[in-house]
């Protein structure tokens, strides 16, 4: 893989080399720096090929595909319930949130809607997986910028959330709890009180991270004004989630879209930031984590009683049709374009993952920055490799 891939990449770099001779006065040649696929800054196996002039990036491009698992092809040989087990491995940090849009798309095609109780639990678990995902981002952000402590605090507190997800669904990372028509099971007793306690902990974690990182002048000088994405560019590249909101676009699919989920039953705020720089992106995520804990807290008190599963046949055949459902996942807009042919399995599933679009802006964004800023920008765009490569 690497050798052949390299040849292709290198020939492309050669074609860009004319560009790279920026420093005309000194006639210095640029240097090609391979960041990754095995590199501490690229959680996963993303590789960035950067053409440098000194420490300044002349041209840079991510090379993905080191973790391409071909999920779109794999879905075509699986039945609908089996696909759920695949899709929660796309963004492995917020896996429950990956299942939801797929299940919603299938439900839409079948004309089934989950019972209200299931919708509440779904939404709560969805937000919990957002918290699990983003809290790791907040910690990882520190590591990318050279602070070692936040990541351990993040792992410490994310563990509580994962424990919650595990005790409800049975899987820490891959819940596979969503079923077409509802949920696999109801919540175990005592879960609601536990969750309330954990949400309190997570809020204090957010405060800690804010004090440790966001308030830190060094952190601010590293992130403010770095990697600025203007509003129209963000829309053009299809950026989503916090990256889009940090560019001043007030758009949250949880609020701006009607889905059989219950975000509208809670009182929360969509945070935006006008700057569009790395700091804005990180800050929006921090605020969103806080909002998520609030959403969870409010919904916990309002879970109605009832069944968690609608009446669906045991052997699920989804009627013919096409459906597009996307939700506001931890990383951004995650959507599935499901085409069914009335078979046991989907005919075609196009997985629109957030990171793919979010990272596709990097060649544009990395031009002219310094090597340390590559790391800052990648960290602030926040990607999960499985979400890019799928």
């Amino acid at each position, binding site marked *: 893989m690497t050798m052949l891939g390299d040849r292709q990449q290198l020939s492309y770099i050669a074609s860009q080399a004319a560009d790279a001779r920026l420093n005309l006065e000194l006639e210095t040649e640029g240097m090609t720096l391979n960041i990754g696929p095995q590199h501490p800054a690229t959680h996963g196996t993303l590789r960035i090929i950067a053409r440098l002039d000194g420490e300044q990036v002349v041209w840079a491009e991510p090379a993905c595909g080191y973790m391409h698992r071909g999920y779109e092809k794999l879905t075509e040989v*699986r*039945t609908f*319930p*089996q696909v*759920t*087990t*695949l899709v929660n491995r796309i963004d492995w940090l917020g896996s429950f949130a990956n299942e939801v849009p797929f299940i919603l798309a299938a439900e839409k095609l079948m004309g089934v809607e989950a019972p209200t*109780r299931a919708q509440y639990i779904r939404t709560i678990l969805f937000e919990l997986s957002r918290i699990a995902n983003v809290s790791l981002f907040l910690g990882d952000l520190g590591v990318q910028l050279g602070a070692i*402590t936040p990541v351990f*605090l993040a792992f*410490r507190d994310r*563990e509580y959330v994962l*424990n919650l997800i*595990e*005790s*409800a*669904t*049975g*899987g820490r990372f*891959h819940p*596979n709890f969503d079923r077409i028509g509802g949920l*696999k*099971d*109801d*919540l*175990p*007793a*005592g*879960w*609601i009180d536990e969750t309330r306690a954990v949400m309190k902990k997570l809020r204090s974690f957010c405060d*800690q991270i804010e*004090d*440790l*990182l*966001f*308030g*830190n*002048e*060094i*952190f*601010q000088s590293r992130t403010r004004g770095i990697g600025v994405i203007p509003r129209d560019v963000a829309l053009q590249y299809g950026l989503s989630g916090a990256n889009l909101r940090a560019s001043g676009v007030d758009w949250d699919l949880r609020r701006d879209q009607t889905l059989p989920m219950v975000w509208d039953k809670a009182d929360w705020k969509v945070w935006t930031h006008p700057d569009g720089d790395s700091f804005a992106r990180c800050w929006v995520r921090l605020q969103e984590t806080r909002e998520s804990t609030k959403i969870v807290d409010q919904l916990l008190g309002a*879970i*109605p*009683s*009832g*069944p*968690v*599963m609608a009446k669906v046949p045991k052997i699920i055949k989804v009627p013919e049709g096409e459906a597009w459902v996307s939700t506001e996942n931890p990383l951004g807009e995650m959507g599935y374009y499901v085409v069914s042919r009335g078979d046991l399995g989907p005919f075609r599933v196009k997985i629109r993952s957030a990171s793919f679009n979010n990272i596709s802006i990097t060649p544009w964004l990395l031009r002219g920055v310094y090597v340390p800023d590559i790391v800052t920008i990648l960290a602030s765009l926040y990607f999960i490799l499985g979400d890019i490569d799928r």
Partner: protein
Amino acid sequence: MAKVPGLVKGLGVTLGTLFKTTVNGSNTVQYPHEKETPPIRSRGVIALHQDNCTSCMLCSRSCPDWCIYIEAHKELAPPRREGGKPRQVNLLDRFDIDYALCMYCGICVEVCPFDALFWSPEYEYSEPNISDLLHDKSKLSEWMETVPEAPELEAGADKKKK
């Protein structure tokens, strides 16, 4: 009140955690010495209740990974009642789960119509060699002992479900 510089606040967080860890102890579980009990629903390993299995192949067929291998043959069993016709039963020859392939999705446990498969929270079965992760029915039956009772459900749940 004057704004505390972020640099000082950051130092405060680390120092605070230092004291907290010193006083309250850390969150680390010293694994081989002390163990966490996983939640009841935790999907650790799949246990097989051999007597319930009728080798209907449903689990094997619904497995997304194709990691359940079943072989069985029919045999005549003594009749249930005196003087009845001898019954035909399926005798399980092989029931292997390849845990190197298993995705721990639980579909097999769900589709099993005869309650022969269960989740156990047991997790200590790692092997140095990947091929040793193919476990046969005797090993799977041993895990039956570790299967816990299903947990109580949260208030408001529909009690119809087991």
